[in-house]
């Protein structure tokens, strides 16, 4: 597998704040790479460092096997990006904006190409309108257009669905899948919503407070993982003694006044349930939570407090 992005011990410090702390990150060719973290986790700072908008305090970034510091020009020629909200020259038309950005992209972007891209994002009819007349959704789509304009190999999308309606979110998701599957692009997608990434990403990283929490394929992280399962029963003591001599004892994490918590995989939940019922214990509820999801929910909630 060819590494497209390789980030090593990347650190960005502001006066007394460490925004990104020894981050390690690898994106392989063909990946739809989910870059997850709550707001303020350091996602944008990392992306800005990958795009040379911000200088790292420490660490290295290699893209396409080249150090960003030295080969910025070559690297940026092959990347398309949206960084945070899509901003354009409001006093210029959509077409003019793309024309300017095309000229700066080190490739020959023809009028035909601009119109193709505008059509692809559904803005071809508004190409002469000034961007200041655009809605947020339209700007978001124009943002995608500018990122794709010069047919880049690597597409970096920073929260591309923010502020979009469900239909818009679906459109973007479909477009990402199209770019990945049909066009063979490598995509780095940042988000603070696990679900969004989980659906389309092949690999992902979760960061918080600038630090890597986990990194791996989505399958590894999401599906093969044992879940925490809360089992609410009528008699906790009876339930405990019922599993005392079984292998379930090893799966027990804790016991409360009316519930027990186990660590189980999908398959085991059904068997345990059956075991309790056959032992005459009433099971009121079974609530599985994936620890990652749970964890992510918690840090997201924390960050929003």
């Amino acid at each position, binding site marked *: 597998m060819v590494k497209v992005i390789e980030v090593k011990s990347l650190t960005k410090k502001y006066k007394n704040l460490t925004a990104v702390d020894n981050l390690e990150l690898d994106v392989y060719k063909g990946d739809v790479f989910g870059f997850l973290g709550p707001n303020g986790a350091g996602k944008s700072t990392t992306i*800005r460092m990958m*795009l*040379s*908008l*911000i*200088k790292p305090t420490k660490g290295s970034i290699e893209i396409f096997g080249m150090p960003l510091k030295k080969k*910025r*020009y*070559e*690297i*940026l*020629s092959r*990347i398309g*990006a949206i*960084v*945070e*909200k899509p*901003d*354009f*020259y*409001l*006093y*210029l038309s959509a077409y*003019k904006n793309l024309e*300017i*950005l095309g*000229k*700066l*992209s*080190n490739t020959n972007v023809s009028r035909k190409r601009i119109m193709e891209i505008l059509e692809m994002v559904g803005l071809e009819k508004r190409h002469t309108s000034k961007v200041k007349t655009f809605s947020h959704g339209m700007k978001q789509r124009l943002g995608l257009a*500018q990122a794709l304009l010069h047919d880049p190999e690597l597409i970096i999308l920073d929260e591309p669905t923010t502020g979009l309606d469900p239909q818009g979110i679906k459109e973007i998701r479909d477009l990402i899948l199209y770019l990945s599957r049909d066009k063979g692009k490598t995509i780095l997608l940042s988000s603070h919503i696990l679900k969004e990434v989980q659906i389309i990403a092949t690999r992902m990283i979760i960061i918080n407070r600038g630090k890597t929490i986990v990194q791996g394929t989505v399958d590894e992280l999401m599906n093969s993982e044992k879940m925490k399962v809360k089992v609410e029963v009528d008699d906790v003591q009876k339930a405990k003694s019922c599993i005392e001599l079984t292998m379930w004892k090893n799966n027990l994490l804790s016991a409360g006044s009316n519930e027990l918590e186990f660590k189980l995989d999908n398959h085991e939940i059904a068997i345990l349930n059956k075991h309790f019922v056959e032992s005459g214990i009433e099971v009121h509820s079974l609530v599985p939570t994936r620890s990652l999801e749970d964890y992510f929910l918690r840090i997201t909630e924390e960050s929003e407090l």
Partner: protein
Amino acid sequence: MSTLIQIELVKIFRKWRTYIGFIAIAVLVVIIQLSIYLTGERFIDFAIQNIKDTFEMVGNFVNGNLIALLVLQMLYVHIPFLIVLVGGDLLASEATAGTYRILLTRPISRFKLIASKFIAGTIYANLLLAFLMLVSLGGSLLIFGSGELIVIKNKIYIFASDDTPWRFVLAYGFATLSLTVVMTLSFFFSSLVENAIGPIVASMAVIIIFLIISSIDIELLRQLRPYLFVTHMAKWSEFFREPVRIDEVIKSAVILLAHIIALFSLTLFIFKKKDILS
């Protein structure tokens, strides 16, 4: 690079504020021309009353040359304010609008971006000056005709009408340098902050403070004068005396050029190190 400059010019000239300067100059020049046309004779008579007591004089002093000179004098202090409107906006507006993010993620070097913005800004400043020259000198000569140019300074100069064009050309040429300093100053401020108002106000404040200091006749402040760029900006008027102290002009030109280079380098240094957080 030329593409970049072109793009920067497009950005400048698609903005409404760019035209404020041109409109202001057109309006001001017409007002000045009109008022001189109506009261110029009296104005000149008053100015040269003492000479007329001693000398018999004939000639039409209220002519295009005089008006062009008066316009240049009056507006030389004010055109900088029009230039900072655009100069202060050059970098800060990209920060305000968030367009740094789509601009600097393209394969262009920051040096080239700064240089092309600087060049585009300088082109704007000089177009403004050329426009002033066109309406004030061209317009006045067309309406009022040519004639001897009377200049009253440390002594009274009367320049033959065929002795004035080169003076105007060189004066405007020198003004180019002066206004480029102003542009560079606002450009520098523009690199420091993320809104356009700050650099515009800061540049104006610097110019106003320097102008005030340079016009107060107190020994201590007078000693400061050679160190203020506004003092050197005024050296265009050297071309309207005889003999032209060319060494003075060159000295001031070098100082102004040094300001441009220093401010540009500083801007470049700051901008190259800048983290784009907007």
